[in-house]
């Protein structure tokens, strides 16, 4: 499969009263065409920032550090002018946001909002065609009575419906890549499943790659082809979803998986990970997880941790990968 | 208090306060500072330009008007009127409005309905029209002016106080006080009021500038302060006839108004920002 999105050494910094805060630190990630990749981490791990960086929506005074690279189909995005970037946004990459209640303009009809990228990128030949396409899209995401609902306002819809609308608006110009920032977090559990099914369907039928950001590794396990785990702005483990969840190598991933409630009470207790995120203005030279890690060695804190490729095709940034350690 | 620190960190608010104090000082010590009395006519010196213009002299810093009054002195005396009127009318409106608002908000029922109807009715008239009308009915005079100004002004404070009271009413500490059997008056005064007075204070400060402009407008029209007492508005009005040859007669008193009101507004805005974190509990 061709590599659709290549993120290389991405670092994003935000100024803060205590010094520059590094939200993303040297992230490497690939998304291939038609693939579903999950980017998992807790709040503050920098995962949403990665998405914003790909979209070029890092607001001043935050900045992408030099040396970072984001390539879409081989084309470098970080150097693009605003005007050029706008041609990419909504056309080659679509984005779905977390809370559909706030991500849609309350005083604009939903049809108009779905139509927006069509209009801006001149996707269709006429306004009538645009409207037709919007109705088709709305129906495709499961909105019944789409033609009448075109002129309805967001407050007339439920959360689940609104998320479908948001997805429709992101897919309008049939982008090859969809960025999804916790698309189901703000929704009821039953609706979550529906939305995920919808996204899976879109991925299958249109071969649209999806980069999904979530804090829920269980969700990612079911939904994604590959999972990348992020901690304190760095990727700690990347690999096929099933492998990462069933045989986590990095201590943090193990901790995350250990937090999962399971049926049948296989594990007697939920094991939370002690401690909290390190200070992002003072990231350690060595492993950022070292202070909370049950397997930490003195070397972990001193040296830069290399990415170790495991036998089953994973990359783990822990020097104790593939050791025989009893967990 | 942290509030004061925040307030003074704001340069424009601090500057505003300084200017206000300057005006207050000038008003208080006018008889001492002013080179001439408020009604001291020196007809020989009619329409003299201010000291910094050609033909002016240091004895009349800001020039004289058509009657030979020294403008600078009259501005100092006029500060008394404006400051007093502004302060007193805001104070009275605030007290009455808060009182009625708390009563309406606490007890609801028919008293709330009546008071709110009256408030709506009063709000139905433009302020200046109403005040002119009121002045025309009760006649000129310092006290009457304040009454006329307060007649409609209390409504704003009423609405704010009532709104805040309604919100506080649902809160637990009020329930608790009621359960303890405390008398309503005690609840309102010692429990609720300390929590809501900030927004009322801010509103009061911001309205004071408006009141001063109202007073000036009324004295401009000849209603309000009897003409014997110098007031900035009537000074501007007198200067209107001298527009062609003595521009300073109308300009200087107006600048005095702008200076004071601007300072009050800047200070009020700074006060609002400083108190904001408390307001957004």
């Amino acid at each position, binding site marked *: 499969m061709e590599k659709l999105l290549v993120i290389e050494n991405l670092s994003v910094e935000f100024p803060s009263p205590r010094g520059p805060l590094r939200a993303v630190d040297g992230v490497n990630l690939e998304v291939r065409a038609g693939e579903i990749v999950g980017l998992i981490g807790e709040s503050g791990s920098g995962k949403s920032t990665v998405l914003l960086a790909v*979209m070029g*929506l890092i607001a001043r005074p935050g900045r992408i550090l030099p040396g970072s690279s984001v390539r879409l189909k081989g084309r470098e995005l970080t150097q693009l002018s*605003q005007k050029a970037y*706008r*041609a*990419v*946004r*909504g*056309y080659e990459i*679509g*984005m779905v*946001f977390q809370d559909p209640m*706030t*991500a*849609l*303009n*309350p*005083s*604009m009809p939903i049809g108009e909002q779905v139509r*927006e*990228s069509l209009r*801006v*990128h001149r996707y269709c030949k006429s306004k009538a065609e645009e409207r037709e396409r919007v109705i088709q899209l709305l129906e495709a995401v499961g909105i019944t009575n789409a033609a009448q609902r075109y002129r309805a*306002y967001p*407050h007339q819809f439920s959360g689940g419906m609104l998320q479908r609308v*948001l997805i429709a*608006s*992101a897919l*309008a110009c049939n982008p090859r890549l969809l960025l999804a920032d916790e698309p189901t977090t703000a929704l009821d559990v039953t609706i979550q499943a529906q939305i995920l099914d919808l996204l899976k369907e879109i991925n299958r039928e249109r071969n649209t790659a999806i980069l999904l950001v979530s804090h829920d590794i269980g969700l990612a396990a079911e939904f994604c082809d590959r999972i990348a785990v992020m901690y304190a702005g760095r990727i700690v483990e990347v690999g096929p979803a099933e492998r990462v969840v069933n045989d986590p190598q990095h201590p943090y991933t193990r901790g995350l998986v250990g937090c999962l409630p399971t049926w049948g009470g296989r594990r007697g207790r939920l094991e939370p990970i002690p401690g909290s995120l390190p200070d992002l203005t003072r990231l350690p030279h060595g492993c950022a997880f070292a202070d909370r890690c049950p397997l930490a060695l003195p070397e972990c804190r001193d040296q830069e941790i290399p990415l170790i490729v495991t036998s089953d095709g994973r990359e783990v940034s822990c020097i104790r990968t593939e050791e025989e350690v009893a967990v | 208090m942290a509030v004061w620190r925040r307030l003074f960190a704001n340069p424009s608010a601090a500057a505003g306060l300084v200017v206000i104090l300057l005006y207050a000082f000038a008003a208080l010590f006018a008889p001492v500072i002013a080179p001439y009395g408020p009604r001291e006519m020196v007809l020989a010196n009619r329409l003299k330009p201010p000291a910094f213009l050609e033909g002016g002299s240091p004895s009349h810093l800001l020039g004289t008007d058509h009657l030979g009054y020294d403008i600078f002195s009259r501005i100092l005396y006029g500060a008394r009127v404006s400051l007093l009127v502004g302060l007193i009318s805001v104070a009275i409106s605030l007290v009455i409005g808060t009182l009625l608002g708390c009563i309406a908000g606490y007890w609801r029922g028919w008293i709330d309905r009546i008071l709110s109807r009256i408030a709506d*009715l009063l709000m*139905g*008239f*433009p*302020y*200046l*029209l*109403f005040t*002119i*009308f009121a002045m*025309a*009915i009760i006649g000129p005079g310092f006290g009457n002016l304040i009454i006329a100004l307060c007649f409609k002004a209390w409504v704003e404070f009423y609405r704010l106080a009532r709104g805040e009271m309604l919100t506080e009413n649902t809160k637990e500490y009020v329930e608790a006080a009621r359960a303890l059997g405390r008398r309503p008056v005690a609840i309102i005064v010692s429990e609720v009021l300390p929590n809501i007075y900030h927004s009322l204070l801010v509103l009061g400060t911001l309205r004071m*500038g408006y009141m001063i*402009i109202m007073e*000036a*407008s009324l004295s401009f*029209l000849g209603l309000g302060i009897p003409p014997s007492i110098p007031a900035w*508005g009537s000074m*501007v*009005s007198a*200067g209107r006839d001298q*527009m*062609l040859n003595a521009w300073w007669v*109308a300009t200087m008193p*107006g600048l005095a*108004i*702008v200076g004071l*009101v*601007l300072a009050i*507004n*800047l200070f009020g805005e700074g006060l609002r920002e400083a108190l904001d974190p408390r307001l957004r509990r």
Partner: protein
Amino acid sequence: MKAVRILERVLTALPMSLLMLLLVFAFVRLLPGDPVDIMMGQAGNVSQAEIDALRRELHLDRPLSEQLSIFVRGLLRGDLGMSFREQRPVTEIIGEAFPATVELALAALTFALLIGLPIGVISAVRRNSLVDRLAMGFSFLGISMPAFWLGIMSIMLFSVHLGWTPVQGRLSAGIAPPDLTGLYVLDALLTRDWALLKDALRHLVLPAIALGAELTAIIARVTRSSMLEALQMDYVMAARSRGVPEWQVVLRHGLRNALIPTVTVAGLQLGVLLGGNMIVETVFGWPGLGRLVVGAIFGRDYALVQGAVMLYALTFLLANLLVDILYTQLNPKLEL
């Protein structure tokens, strides 16, 4: 159904208007000073018979309740009585003056929106820049300047000193406006009378600015703060993610939602516009309702005061109603 709701609103406004009429009637009677005495005093030596005759003519010899019924009956007929001083029907006088006031108020509102809205938007988009600070500084000035002083200053500068604009009035002597709407600028545009247009505008400019200055400042500040809030919203980010150009984001997504608080506040300030009318009209010699009211109150011209104040209050009510309706149009969540 929206139309029904609007009708509802109008109907609830009616009892309010009636109450106001009653109040006006009562208040006018409270004005001290016998109008007859004031009038006669100016005429010099008058006989008692003439005084009594005038009293009878003005219904002042009747009890109050009868005066009220005469008034109400006249109102229903469209007859508001005669102005003491000018010996003309009140309806005629206020009919002439009303368009002048409307024109001035509309001009001030237009000015305030044309200047205030863009300033607010730009200040929000370029937050904390020099433009922003200057704009906010000026807005403070705008709310600190009394309209009468601003008016006089502008007359001194632009009319007396520079000679660009006339000193007083609505039109120069010798220019006859067509008898269309009474709004001279509009009439000039309708009849393509460019000389009239130029003259009317030259007279309108300064009073409109003097009246509108405070409102401009308020609109600028409110627009700025509501724009700042709107631009923080998620849907703005979402629009950007679709590749929408920034100016469209600002206008279609930002301003559209920011306008709601702006309209609310601007609407609340309508009263200021209508009240401030009196001052500005007096300063500029603008022949409108405001100047009329002031003169009538001073002259104890009962009928004229009644008619003029009533019209004032009713216009105020109507304007508030219009703002309410506009507000619901902008905010789809509300249905009146």
